[in-house]
């Protein structure tokens, strides 16, 4: 997986394996942590946040390791939207 972060893997690996399967595991982790209490929830949330940001860097760097350059553009757009969504979520949470 270190090749993902260095941008040496094909885009589908970080996007589908890291994003979809890793995302599913993250959701399960957060779900279990929510049952265990607020401390576990904060720990799980922080882990998922760090993993998410690591994955976005990987997707950004691997974006153009594709056979069709359109997927590269879409991969990077998905990164911009993901990070923007986090920023807006944090803004909303800071208001309340």
């Amino acid at each position: 997986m270190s090749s993902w972060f260095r941008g040496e893997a094909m885009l589908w690996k970080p996007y589908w394996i890291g994003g979809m399967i890793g995302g599913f595991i993250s959701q399960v982790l957060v779900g279990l942590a929510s049952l265990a209490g607020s401390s576990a929830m904060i720990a799980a949330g922080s882990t998922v946040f760090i993993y998410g940001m690591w994955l976005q860097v990987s997707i950004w760097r691997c974006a153009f390791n594709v056979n069709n350059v359109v997927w590269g553009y879409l991969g990077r757009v998905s990164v911009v939207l993901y990070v923007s969504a986090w920023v807006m979520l944090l803004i909303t949470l800071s208001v309340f």
Partner: protein
Amino acid sequence: MSYDASVHSGCVVCRREAGQPSVMPGPGTGHGKPVGASGAPANAGIVVAAISTPLVLLMALATYFTITLLLDVREELDVFIEPVLMEAAANGWSDEAVARHASPGYLLELESSAAAGPLDELRNLGPIQRYDGVETFNVQSGGGGGGTAMASVEVAFGSGERTLSVGLERIESRWYLGSLGLASP
């Protein structure tokens, strides 16, 4: 074939043949097509920004309206809850004072003494010294000016700060108390 950056400006095929890091050539990154240091086409930043900007602006707009709506709802709940709590506390949390703002369902609970326990707990807390407002809330719209809500309200009593759990019911565009008690710790 030697790599000549002045000719191909980072062309992926030339970079690979020169033994430099490269990406797999696709239709957009083939021989003679310029790529950046990361293997991205030279115009990648512009294309990504052009696609992303309207979508990010839409997200920002949706976030703004969500925050505005939530602030409005919280203010509306505060406008109802604060005078109700103040009045009830001033009257010693009597059933009559609470019943003035109770929903039909909560009224039945008050009459049957089913709500006596939570009100007894409030009576032991002393006078309200400060109303800090709605902390968290959850609103379910029922349509037609109806719905229910749960709000956690921070209140400073003579015996210390406590969180009250206030259930609300909206009937014909007016709020009523649906339940009242201390939030579980």
